[in-house]
């Protein structure tokens, strides 16, 4: 409904005559392979008033420092902060960079992310509205060669689309690390990023919402980011996101039902999402366990009785109303994803997508509640570290 109503201005962004000075802060830990390209992308972004680009090296064990130092000769506005000791989180490095940043706007860019050309030009106009505290843009998968990367590519598109929809109801709940533009005074007001939180970008966005700042989404540009290409690092990343979400819920729990959309939508939305995922998984396991025990008993009795385990009469299709509901849900999900990819100008009818989209809808999303259980365990045990 939101999209249909706003489809004519969905990709639009406000133009500005103001020339905001922008400081880039790039936290980096072992980003030797990508940091050069990230810095080059920033300086090649086409924005006329870059105040400085601050790379904060959190005691990387690889050649991050050397790469940045070599780039400093080429880019005089590039600054390097080497943390004296490993601070252990992106938030701490971002805060270290913030202290040095002098721009009116602060662009946070992850060390493995690559902002598109003119992205800042397109995002900066939102700040003409004095109520806007942060602007984000679609994060797209940089690497889309392997199967797991392609699946995440679909997911990232879906997330971007949904985030734009949320903008229309003042409910953007995260301005992600790959590229987020903040008003400097806003970040100062909330005291920078929460270093104890595993998802400082979510926490900062909730904090902004709590303080009444608007968050905007610019669909006219994007940033690409390297996504995990294997299940293990992907799982770890998602676990970190979930733990960060849990930390945020805990921190802001007293604002449920207060503080506008934060208490009326964002926090309940996170909680209901988690509950439904866990409830669904619980039901799934209950049914599965019951069926396994039932089959075991049936097999046992059948062997005891000397009757066949399978007979033709057991094969029939009499779908229940719930089976039809499941099919309708799947088709609705499929239409939703296809519509998103179409709206975001992604080539849909590729041979790969014929397999990838159903996989994403059926198997990939099913993994979420499992990660949630794992995350709750880690959260409960206090076993969370940023890296």
């Amino acid at each position, binding site marked *: 409904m*939101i999209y249909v109503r706003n489809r004519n201005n969905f990709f639009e962004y406000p133009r500005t005559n103001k020339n905001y000075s922008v400081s880039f802060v790039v936290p980096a830990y072992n980003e030797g392979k990508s940091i050069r390209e990230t810095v080059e992308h920033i300086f090649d972004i086409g924005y006329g008033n870059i105040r400085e680009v601050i790379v904060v090296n959190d005691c990387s064990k690889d050649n991050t420092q050397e790469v940045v130092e070599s780039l400093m000769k080429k880019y005089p506005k590039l600054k390097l902060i080497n943390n004296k000791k490993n601070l252990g989180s992106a938030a701490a490095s971002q805060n270290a960079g913030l202290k040095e940043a002098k721009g009116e706007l602060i662009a946070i860019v992850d060390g493995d992310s690559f902002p598109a050309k003119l992205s800042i030009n397109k995002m900066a106009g939102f700040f003409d509205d004095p109520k806007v505290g942060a602007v984000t843009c679609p994060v797209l998968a940089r690497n889309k060669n392997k199967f797991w990367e392609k699946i995440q590519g679909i997911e990232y598109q879906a997330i971007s689309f949904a985030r734009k929809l949320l903008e229309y*109801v003042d409910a953007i709940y995260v301005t992600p690390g790959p590229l987020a533009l903040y008003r400097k005074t806003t970040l100062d007001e909330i005291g920078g990023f929460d270093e104890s939180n595993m998802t400082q970008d979510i926490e900062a966005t909730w904090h902004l919402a709590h303080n009444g700042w608007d968050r905007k989404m610019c669909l006219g540009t994007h940033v690409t980011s390297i996504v995990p290409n294997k299940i293990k690092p992907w799982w770890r990343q998602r676990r970190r996101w979930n733990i960060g979400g849990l930390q945020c819920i805990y921190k802001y729990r007293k604002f449920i039902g207060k503080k506008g959309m934060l208490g009326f939508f964002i926090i309940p939305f996170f909680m209901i999402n988690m509950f439904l995922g866990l409830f669904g998984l619980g039901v799934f396991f209950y049914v599965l366990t019951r069926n396994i025990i*039932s089959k075991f*008993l049936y097999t046992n*009795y059948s062997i005891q*009785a000397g009757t066949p385990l399978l007979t033709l009469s057991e094969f029939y299709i009499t779908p*229940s109303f719930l089976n039809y509901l499941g099919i*309708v849900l799947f088709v609705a999900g499929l239409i939703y994803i296809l519509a998103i990819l179409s709206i975001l100008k992604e080539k849909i009818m590729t041979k790969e997508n014929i397999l990838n989209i159903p996989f994403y809808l059926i198997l990939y999303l099913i993994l979420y509640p499992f990660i949630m259980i794992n995350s709750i365990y880690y959260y409960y045990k206090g076993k969370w570290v940023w890296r």
Partner: protein
Amino acid sequence: MLHSQKHVFWQALLVTIVIFSLGILMGFILENWRTSKVDQLFKKSEIDLLDARVQNEIYTGKNFDCSLAINENIKFADRIYNEAKTLDRYETASRLSDEIYLEHKKYDILRVLLLLNSMKIKEKCNSTYHEVVYFYNFNEQDINKKAKQNVYSNQLREIKEYKGDKMLLIPIAGNINVSSINLLLDVYDIKESDLPVIVIDGKIKVMDIKKLEDLKKYFE
């Protein structure tokens, strides 16, 4: 600048309620359609049984045609046994309405009538066919008993295929709170907690899993 469109929540809620209601309505329509299908089958079976009983009443004394009555009775039993399978499938898929449960009750009463009819014919004709009543639990939730019931059903189906017209198989749910069925359970001295139970020729009660071959021996 964009204005907030939070009123979309109310509109979305309304649309959701409409779609959800439509879904539930479709579900009811689907289940009612199945119920009416079962109801049609039932009515036909009910008429046939009444017809058979009236015939029995008419053919009294020496006019009574035993072979015809036995054949009719077994044919009829086979048909409602097959209809029971359809009913069972619909019951498994039924989620919204309890109409199908009422159909089940009606069918079970019909089966009791069939049993009584069969008893009468057997007595009159001194017939040798086997009369098997399978008392089970409707909508059994205990997975152990459910597994046992499935195995019993398989065994009885196998024996029925093997014996054909020499066996009259009448499955009856013993836990649906129908007075005539409760009376029947009393007659056979079966408690609801004993179910599932197979009663062969009104004398032998099978309450534990037996080898198919051993079970077949009762029918020799």
